[in-house]
Structures are given as C-alpha cells and as structure tokens.
C-alpha cells in the first residue's frame, strides 16, 4: 500500500509540475468575440446598433419581408398570384383560410423579437461605453426608435404582445411566466420610446452621406404620427405630421416615377427606408421583392400580383401617372424600362398577369447574375406623401377639413390630378382614403389601413372582404378581366372566408403558446 501511495504521489507531482493545469482546462471560445468584451469601442457600439436595423426587413426574403407581402395579398390590392406553386401557408392566408402555423407568421414574430433584444442589449451596454456623449445619445435613440418600430409592427399584426423592455429581463427565470400585454400598454410603450428617442436624433440633413439611412428626428416624428393615427389620437397625429411637413427636411419627389428608381435610395421624399445594394462578396445586402414579386415570365416567383380592382381604382380617378408606375400588365410595355416592349406576365401561372412596378427592377439596372438578395433599390417604410395623407386624415377627423383638403391637394398636384376643394364630410373622408390607396398602392400599407379605418364603427375591411364584400362581389359578379376570370387556379371568390370576429388580427404562432406553457394565449377564433 505504501508503494501505491508513493507511486501515485510521484505521478501526481509529475503531472502538476510538467503541465499548467489551468492552461489545459481554460479553453476560451475561438474565432468569436464575447459579449462582455465587445462593448469596448465606439465602432463596436455602432456595429451592434447596425444589427438592430438588420431586423427591420430581415436578412433574407422570408423573415419579415414575405409576411408583409402576404398581408398585401390579404387585401383587395393583391392576389396571392402564383398559381403554379400555390402553398397553403401563403395562398391560404390570402384567402382567409388561415393556417395559424404558417412559417411566415412565426418568422415575422421571432425576427421582430430578436430585433427588440438587440435593441435592449444596446440600451443596456452602450451607456457604459466610453464614447462621445452626443454619439452615445444618438445610438441609444436609434435603438429606442427601432424597438418602438418593432413593437408597433407586432401590435398591428397580432394585437397585445408580451412586452420585454430590458435585456436583464430575459436573464431572469420569471421571463418564463411572461404574458401578453394589452394593446394599450404596447402603444403606450411605443409612444414613450419614440418621445425619448426624438430629442437625441439628428435631422436627416445633419447626417453625413455615409450615414444616410440612419434614424432621424423626422422618422421618429413620422412614426409617432402614425402611431397616433392608428390609435385615433387625431389631434396629436395631425400636429405631429404637420411638424414633419414643416420641417423643411423633406419634399415630394417631383416625378412620381423616380420614387423607386434605382439609385434614388434616401431621396428627398424618403423618411425611413432600408437601402439595398449589389455586393456579391456579402450575402443578402440587396433586395428581394423584384424576384419574389416578379413575373414567372421574368425570372420571378410570381407572388403578390396586383388586382384589376386596384387598376380600376386608378382608372376611375383618371390617374395614369401613378397607375403606370404601380402596375405592369401582361403584353404591355413597362413604363420606365425601354428594354421591355411587351411584358411577359405569364397569365397561365399568374392570377392577374400583372406585376408590381414599384418593386420591379428595370433590365438595365439588374446586376449580373440577377439573383435574389443582390438587387439594388430600397424599401420605404415612411415617405413624405404618407405623412401628408396621415395629416389629411387626422385633420379630417379633427374637423379641420380645410387642412385636410390642402394636404390632399398637395399629393394630387404632383401627379397632375385636380382636387375638388368643395369636398366635405364622408365624401372628403372617402377621397382621402382612396388617395391613400392610390398613392401608397402595393407599398404594403393597405391591410393595416383597411383594418383601422372605420365607418360607423365597422372596419372597412369587413365591407371589402367577406361573402358580401365589395371586392368579392366585384370578382365573382362583375369582373370581365381577361386574365383573372380565366385563371381560376386561384379562385375568384378569394376573401369570402373573411370573418371580422377573427381576422382583424393574425394568430399568435402556435409554437409560442407551447413554448410559454400556455402563458401566451391565442387570439380569438384561431
């Protein structure tokens, strides 16, 4: 026994002298920075804030962009479109045969919350970084704005959502017991974030060229105006929109056709936009929509094609300037793209043979290879015309019809449409709403607008969709559109299943209910 002890002692001694035990056992992670060391410089702090922006439109086509597109398909402006490869989790939703488990709902939900957590981490860590105080304040304000944007986007899609307001919160075990907050609580939080962000944000003109695209004071004001508008806080909405209009920072793009022109990202009308560039070294720095929305005859996937109902709305106003820059039609030339004299809308595979011109990339502007994620352009979340029409709408509901009409005229003047300055009451209201539809058509505002706009307390969507909805009636009884009435692979009565008791909100992703052990509850009807 003594010998054993002796030998063990010798071996142990050998081991402990010949090798540094700590060095052997400390194996730090390789090739990746760690959170606790990361917030050590101004550049790193800024890079982290950049990642919050990345979640505004998601990394690729599917995280958030496509849910926005599906939202458009669930209105009278868009068909699902692609009749060659219909999918229940896209086509079904557009027809209000809603599959709660659609991956697009859960990806949208998840991506927004990842953005919120990135903002929360920034707000937790950046205050301790040793940088210029103005820059620090700006970065924190950017994070706050973006957090507000994410919550606003969530609340208008899903209703009251769980409100995570700090990074520390998710490190506590109590996070598992989190429940949904009310719609009012979410809106209150969004307003608070925007108010706080506003003061520290620069004007658009104060940013260097290399920083164009960062959040501005104008963006915060505009978003706040919209948040007020959604809550029908008409007075605040009108005031806030007016501040933006009078800021001198923005003006309407003189030629409507230039709004989405490649190379015009962050143009004079743009208030909050995500820019896309072509840079093959890096994945997904370019746009998605010209492929996902493109015609199947034009190397696209054929989703989200404009309806003849939308086209008719333009025609009824005699609005050719915006029509030609909004809808491309099979067999016709593409306005602004001299290379295409007869567009292939592939009506046998596409419900309406029409394509969204705003997200179309002219042949000359297409990179080679013409690949998804590499197409230059921009996605505008808020532009001045939107704010002016918010102002018009808010003014109308405040009883300030003169201001409302002035704003309406501002937008119509650009596209050479006369404004009937004698409009009043419901007719004025309807004119403002219609103007909103035409001006912002296919920019993915429509679903939210017709959900929130009410006539005698009834949301407009309920009169547009459903078995007796105007859109459904038009398609099933009146339409003679040569494409839509012949390609019935997507049925003409799309929208007939709409039920106002269910479909004013989207379903909470079912896996979230399971993961929260039932603490997160489903919206009614799903």
């Amino acid at each position, binding site marked *: 026994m003594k010998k054993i002890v002796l030998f063990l002692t010798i071996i142990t001694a050998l081991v402990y002298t010949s090798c540094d035990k700590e060095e052997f056992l400390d194996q730090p992670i390789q090739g990746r920075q760690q959170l606790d060391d990361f917030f050590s410089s101004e550049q790193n702090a800024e890079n982290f804030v950049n990642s919050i922006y990345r979640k505004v439109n998601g990394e690729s086509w599917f995280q958030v962009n496509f849910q926005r597109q599906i939202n458009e398909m669930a209105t009278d402006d868009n068909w699902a479109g692609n009749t060659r490869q219909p999918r229940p989790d896209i086509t079904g939703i557009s027809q209000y045969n809603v599959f709660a488990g659609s991956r697009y709902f859960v990806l949208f939900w998840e991506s927004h919350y990842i953005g919120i957590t990135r903002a929360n981490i920034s707000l937790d860590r950046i205050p301790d970084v040793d940088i210029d105080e103005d820059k620090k304040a700006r970065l924190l304000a950017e994070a706050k704005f973006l957090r507000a944007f994410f919550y606003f986007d969530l609340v208008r899609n899903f209703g009251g959502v769980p409100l995570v307001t700090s990074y520390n919160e998710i490190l506590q075990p109590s996070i598992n017991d989190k429940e949904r907050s009310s719609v009012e609580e979410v809106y209150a939080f969004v307003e608070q974030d925007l108010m706080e962000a506003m003061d520290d944000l620069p004007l658009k003109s104060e940013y260097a060229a290399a920083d164009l695209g960062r959040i501005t004071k104008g963006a915060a004001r505009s978003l706040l105006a919209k948040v007020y508008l959604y809550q029908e806080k008409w007075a605040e909405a009108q005031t806030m929109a007016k501040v933006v209009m009078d800021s001198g920072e923005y003006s309407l793009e003189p030629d409507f056709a230039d709004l989405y022109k490649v190379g015009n990202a962050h143009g004079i009308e743009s208030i909050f936009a995500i820019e896309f560039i072509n840079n093959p070294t890096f994945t997904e*720095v370019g746009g998605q929509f010209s492929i996902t929305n493109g015609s199947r005859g034009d190397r696209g996937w054929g989703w989200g094609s404009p309806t003849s109902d939308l086209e008719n709305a333009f025609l009824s106003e005699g609005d050719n300037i915006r029509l030609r820059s909004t809808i491309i039609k099979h067999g016709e030339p593409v306005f602004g793209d001299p290379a295409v004299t007869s567009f292939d809308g592939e009506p046998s595979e596409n419900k309406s043979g029409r394509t969204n011109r705003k997200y179309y990339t002219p042949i000359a502007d297409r990179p080679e290879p013409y690949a998804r994620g590499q197409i230059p352009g921009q996605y505008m979340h808020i532009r001045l015309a939107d704010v002016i029409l918010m102002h018009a709408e808010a003014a109308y509901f405040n009883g300030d019809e003169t201001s409302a009409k002035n704003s309406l005229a501002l937008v119509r003047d650009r596209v050479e449409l006369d404004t009937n300055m004698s409009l009043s009451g419901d007719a004025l209201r309807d004119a403002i709403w219609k103007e909103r539809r035409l001006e912002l058509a296919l920019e993915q505002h429509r679903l939210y607008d017709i959900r929130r706009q009410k006539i005698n307390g009834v949301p407009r969507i309920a009169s547009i969709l459903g078995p007796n909805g105007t859109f459904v009636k038009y398609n099933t009884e009146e339409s003679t559109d040569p494409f839509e009435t012949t390609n019935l692979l997507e049925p003409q009565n799309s929208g007939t299943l709409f039920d106002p008791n269910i479909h004013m909100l989207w379903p909470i992703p079912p896996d979230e209910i399971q993961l929260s052990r039932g603490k997160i509850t489903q919206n009614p009807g799903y």
Partner: protein
Amino acid sequence: MKQLVLIFISTLCLSFTVASQNNVTGNITDDQGQPIPGVNILEKGTTNGFVSDFDGNYSISVGDNATLVFSYIGFKTQEVAVNSRGTINISMVTDNEQLAEVVVIGYGAVKRDKIATSISSVDGEEISKQVASNAAEALQGKAAGVQVLSSGGSPGASPRILVRGITTVLGNASPLIVLDGVLQASGTSLNSINPRDIESMDILKDAAASAIYGSRASNGVILITTKRGKAGKTVVNFDFNYGVQGWDKVEVADAQEYIEVYNARRINDNADPSVLLNPDDFGAGTDWWDEVVEDFAPIVNANLRASGGSDNIKYGASVSFFDQQSNYSKGNYQRVTARFNVDFKISDKITLKQDLTPRIETFENTPNLLFNSLRIDPITPVFIPQSERVGRNEFSIFGLSRNLVPNPVGQLARQFAQNDFFALVSNTQLEYKISPDFTFNSQLGFTVSSLTWEVFNPEYFIGPNRQREINNYTKNVTQNFNYVINNTITFDKTINEKHYLNVLGGILFDSESTNYLRGFRDGIPSNTNQNLWQLDAAEGETVRAFGNEGTQNILSGVFRTIYSFDNRYTLNASVRVDQSSRFPKDGRTGIFSSVSLAWDIDSEDWFKSEAINNLRLKIGVGELGNQNISRDGQFFAIGSDSFVFGGERVVSNFLSQFGNTNLQWETVRDKNFGVDLGLFNNEITLSAEYYVKTSEDLLNQVLLPNFTGVPGTVAQNVGSIESKGIDIALGYNKKWNDFTLGLNLTLSSNESTLVEAAPGNEVILGQRRPTLGNRFVKITELGEIVGLFQGYKNDGIFQNQTELNSHTSEDGTIIQPNAQIGDLRFVDQNGDGQLDDEDLVTIGNPFPDFFGGLNVNMQYKKLDLSMQWYGTFGNDVYNGNLEYIRAGTQNLNVLAGTTDVVWTPTNTDARFPRLTELDRNGNYQNPSDLFIEDGSYLRLRNIQLGYNFNVKGFQRCRLYVSGQNLITITDYSGFDPEVQSGGIINGLGVDFGRNPVAKTYLLGLNLTL
C-alpha cells in the same frame, strides 16, 4: 483505391516464407475425441509453427530433436519432444482455470468472476460472422440492454447505439467507445473500425462498471479490443464477400390515380370545374421510383490478416477493403483500413506494444431522394421536350413539378459532393512490471485525421426559384487532433490463496481539438469539366473564406479497488475526478464514485446442487458524468453580418449565442441488481439485471419562447430523468455428437421518466413540425415518460350532418365550425367548446414494452447455420409520411390505392378523412393520433449458411451465403419500422421517410492458411 489493396496484399504475401526439414504430422482432439481446429503448434525456441486445420490435423517440418508446444485457449498447453517421430497425435486437456473468461474493464483486465458490475461481452467470432460493414450492426440483439437503431440504408450510415435506454435529453446519447484503451472522440462511429479486427467487445452497462471512465461514460461504454499476434506460426486469414442490396419498391399513385385524387380534393371543395385536370391528357405518367432507384447496389468486402511471432515479438497485421454503392446513381462509400500491431517483450519486466492504424475513406454523399421521389407528382415528365431545350445546359432540361418538389432526377444530376477522409491512429503502451505485484502502465494514444469535402453546384434553370444563376464551388478541410495520455499503476496479488486484491490508480489527460478552413467561390468557367472544379479556376465576384478552431480537454484522476475473498465475495469500488474545459471554472470539477458487490453462492461450502453450477448475485451503485453539451455553451458570443448605409455595406454585430455561466456536469446515479445462473454445466445460462438510473442536472439546449429574442437555444441544466429497466439474457448451448446448438435470447425493457424540472423547464418540447402549425409533436412533462407523442385524439370521422351538429360542448358551442362530413372529429378534452392547446393529450409512446434478439447457431458436421432475429414490441411510431401520403397535401403524390382508403360517401369506415384541398378542418394541419401507429416489428437481421471444407495447404476453408433484413414482420404501414430521426428524446420513433434499411444478399469465402 483497389490498386492500393493489391499492393498491401502482395506485401503481406511476401512477408512469410517456410523453412523445410523433417515432417511431423498428427491429429489433435479434445478429451471427448472431437477434433480441435486452430490449435497453435510451435517448435519451441523458434518462430516455426503451424495451426491445426478443421479436422484437427497438422503437419510441421522440424528438427529431429525439437520440442513441439501445443496451445489453445481453454486447454492446458502441452510440450512434446519429437524424438524423430513422424506422427504425433495429441489429446488436449481442458484447463478449467484458464476457461474463466478474462474481461476488459477499463485500464486493465480481470477474470470475469472478479467483476461485480454489469458487463456484456461479445466475442469477435460472433461479430465477424455477421457480414456487416459496421460492428454496431453486429451488436444488435447480442447483448442484453443494448439497443442498436439503424440510421437507414445509405452507404456508410452508422447505426445509433443506446445502452440501457435514454437518460440524456440531447441528441447524442451514444456510448463512449474505447479502442484498445484509447477513449475515442465523442461522436466517433463504429465505422472507424474494421469489424474483422475485433477480438472482443465489452459493453459496460452500469455506472459501477463505467465509473472508471467517469465523465464521458454516462451513456455506457463499449470497450473494443483488437486482435493481436500470438506466438507461433504465422496465421493468414483471408475473407472475401460480395453481395447486392436493394429496397422493396414503394408503390405510389400513377398519373391516373393522382389526377383522381387531385380532382377529388377540388370537387370536394366545390372548386370551379375549369381547375380540374383531364385524365385523358396524361398517360400512366412518370414512375419516379424507377427513374431514381437502382434495383441492386453492389457491396464488396475483403479482409486479409496475418499474425504470428515468437515469445518476444508478436505481430498482427490486417488490411481490409470495403465498398458499398447506394441504390441511386450517386452515393457510395469506400474504406480501406489497415492495422499493424507489434508486442515487444523487451525484458521480463518491460513490454512495449505499438499499434498503428491508418484508414482512408472516400464517400460521395448519398442523396435522400426517397422523400422527393414519393412526393413529386407523376404528371411531371422527367425531361422537358427536345424542342424546349434550346439554350439550356444539361442541368436545365428537367421537368418542373406542379407541386413544390424538386425533380429528383435533376437533383441527382446536380449533386457533386465528394468526401475524402484520412486518419492515422497510433497507440503506444508501455508496461513495466516493477515487482511481481506492481505494474506501471503508460499509454499514449493519438489520432490525426483530416476530412476534405468538396461541393460543386452547377448553374441551371428549371423554373423560377428552381435555378442557380451562377455556379459555385466549396472546399472544406477539417483537421482533428486528439490524444490521451494515461499513466496508471496497478497492484495485483492473491494473498493466502483466499484474498485477491487489485488496486489501480492513475492520472489521465484527454484532449480533442479541431480546426477547419473553407473556401467558396463562384463563377467556375465550366459546368462539366471537373478539372476546373477548383477554387483557383473560379472567376466570379463572390469569394468567401471561413475557418475556426476549438479545443476541449479533460484532466482526470482515477482510483479503483477490486477485492475478492475466497471466490465467494467480490467488492469493486472506484473514484474518478474529472475536470472539463467545457464548463465554467466553478462547475468544472466532477467527482464520480461507485461501489459494487457480488456473492458467488455456488462457491459456498453449504451450497450443493447437481443442476446449478453457477449462481451469483450482484449489486452496484455508481455515479457518472455527462458533459455532452456544446463546447462553447458557457459563452455569450458575438456574430457578424452586413447592413447598408449611404450606399455602402457596413458591419453589423449581434449576440448570436446566449451562454450560461452556471453550466455544470450532468450526473448519472445508477443502481444495479443482478443475478447470474448457470445450469447443467452452463448448458443453460441466465443473467438478469434490474437497474435504476437517475440523471441529475440534465444538460439540454433549451428553446426559449421566441419573444425573448434569444436566437437558437441555450445550454442549461434542466432537471432529472429516472430510467428503470430490466435486462435478461438466456442461453442454451448443447453439443451432441455431430450437432451443436446455441440459442441465445436477450430481452430488455426500460422506461424513462422526468422526475425533476428546473424552473421554466417543466415541459421539454421536441420535434417541431412546420406542416402541423409548428407545433411540437413530442413532449416531456414532469412526472411523465420522456418524449411522448402529443396531439389531439380523434374520435372517428363525421358521417353525417347530425354528427356534425351534435359535436358541441355542453352549452351548445359547435366545436369544429369548419368541419364537413368526412372530416376528422377531434376530442374537446376540456369541454370548453373549442379546440386549442389545452386539448392536446398524449397519443403515443415511442418506447417499446420490450425489445430483444434471438440468436440461433447450429452446426452439423461441416455445415453451420446462424440466424439473428431482432424486434421491438409495443412501441408507437409517429408516421410523418402520413402528413401527405394519404392526403395529397400541397398536390404531393399519394400511395397507390389511396382512393380506396379515404372517406367517401360510399367508403364510410375508412381510416383516413375525405380528400380536401382547403382542409378547413385541419385534418392534416394538427398533430393527432391519425399519424400514430404501432411500430412493433420482428426482423431477421441476418441469416447465414456456411460450409466448411478441406483444401490441401489450408487449415480452414469456409464458403458462406448470407442475407440481411430478408424478413420483417410488422403491421406498421410506413416504409421501415426501424425508425428514428433527430435527437433521441426528440427523434425516437419519428418517421420521415428516410432511406429504408436494405435487403442484402451476400456470398463469401473465408480461408485460413
């Protein structure tokens, strides 16, 4: 590759020559007069030797005064002087002392009766009988409590081994593999070893046995001992077999039936008639199975082994070649392994053993095309018409399906994925007998390996979103370097004949490191010239490089005592201390101890029984560690991506991984009770064991609710699982004159329950199904069996309007407002009038009531027959194929005969609901027991018939035919009841139509020189 083999073989052939003197012949028999083949005959003091042939005959040329040494395991060694005789017949005497089997126990080997722990042993003879590419396949049904789950029928697929069920929640529940004392890197598959090189496999099942391997042993340990040279004449063995394997065809609907289903789904939804397809426009359509699957895939296996040596130097060398093709035109697996070992007896005190094992594997990834071949519609042609091919390259001439399934023939054509693997394993063992009782062992084992994979993706256009605008090429090189250094000292002594004591202590280092480098470029100038598929040739603008490295280390101290008194009472005890770099400093150290006792009742003086020759009781308790969690699980790591401001790309950084600074060891505590019984001189043997295993501080990668904004999963210690089970092994071995019979039955049963949950982990969810609304199909709840299937209970099909109207809650709320006649009726468990998460209940259990194997070995004169049956009984399978294969969801194809098994007004007792495109009732969009089936099966895994014959100059010749998986008896309707996918708790019993296990037919020849 084949040339390499030839070179090896010729080298080996040159390496032995025979000297010639006087000839001695004779016959060797046992005490019953039966001939003994394989007896080693050695001319004493030389390396000149011979081995007896099948009939016990030998012939050797020796000097007149030579002495011959006859030795064979289980018999006493005899020395006989030749004295100029020409014929010497020998009768060998059984050596009872020697017969006591030696068992490898980790850092040593002792006789079986000195073991009080639970160890199953399988000898190499058994393993090599099964013509398997992988030793794990040969284990199935051979050792009680060891479950071998097939990974499907792709070349090179390595089965998953479970020792005594599941006690960890993460995917990798594979046992630790220890090859000749060297711990293999986690995740090592048994592919790495040539089954023919295996001398024995010992499976350590309880914690008392495995505790000596502490930290990495919680899923059990498989100790593999390879064959080594024996002193005596060089023995050369050659084994060759060739065979084919194929699958049973799965019959899916042809174009006519597909259209019938396609139309019915629309007609039932009142769709406009213009959207229906006209069957007259299509013929029988494409038979995708025939287009994609090859009926027979060849499989070749060749082994050559030579061993021999003198008392001072023994050597063994082997080389093997294995080639398996897949049942597709792409996909194969080739392996060349060699093994050289030399034992030098440097002095009476010092022995040095050196093993060197190079291995080359090349494989082309086998596509899992079964899934797509079954789902693609039969009305899509394989190729587009000649007239439409203008301007298209050869990858762009494939038909675009009407549903979302890629054309599998096109997929096959586009797949170019090649893998080259090389490994060199060196194992050096120095044994120093300090005194007769003390032995010092020092071992250095290391493995260097390198895997290079290359993927070329050609440019093609089949349709929008079925296209690649620009081709690309990726090359990845991963290198691993692992080493172990073990220093142990052993005291082994029998004192006063009654006290046996074996004490071991040691210090162990274990290190695994890996690094990889990957390059990607696009714009390769040619889609077809393979010489240009290199990074250097690329001309595109996208250039990407990736690379990283990582190391994980364990430092351990071990101590073990084995004490046995008078062959009656045996005590084993061990302690192991582990420190692992995977855990933060505070949770780094784990201490694992064990103790076990055995009582040999039959050795007691008072025990007198004619029938019972062996009766032994044993009991053991022990602890083990599990560090099976991401190497970097403790760290909060930053990732990077891009964004755009002002027209330029900027860097974006984010938190890509949430760490856990409180991470610590998972500890498995285990109790084992066993009895061994031998009757009629071991004609009948029985071994039965009962165990309770509790895993505490279970390691899991936890999925948090999405609203936390935590990407991916977080490593956590989540609770405790208790696993209880019984293992029974029953054997009957008897020899009549010319006939030998061996029957060995193993039966096991076990059940694992979540007995404790950390806050927030009261429910562990698994198997998220996008098709079913992203719901989790598998659930583990506190107090319940782990990994149960969860969903709605269905209560039949609505047959009429009355049934629809009466399916309400008590207050009259219609529960399924969107249902129609022919849809499934789901049970509203809580009666609240709506179907939601509160109505999800347990709908199945993937664990079998019991599983086991029956091995039958028979020998009659020169004929031998063996069979291995394996089965599981009482387990449920989630048949994921049913999500579409009877529904035609998303216009996917259905099984042939679907129109006969779905509900129609004239087929009202159908199992499956009506066909519908909108599926507003969610028949196929909700998890329900519609998808659950009984997965019990019994399978003839292997049957082999051998014929032994004599050829002059050979000791032994054997010709054999073998068939694998020829018979499967099951009610399961899927393609293969032997299913699993993903992790264990998540994946066990879930079938998503992977490549099924193939039927194999082989013909082989075994020669011993």
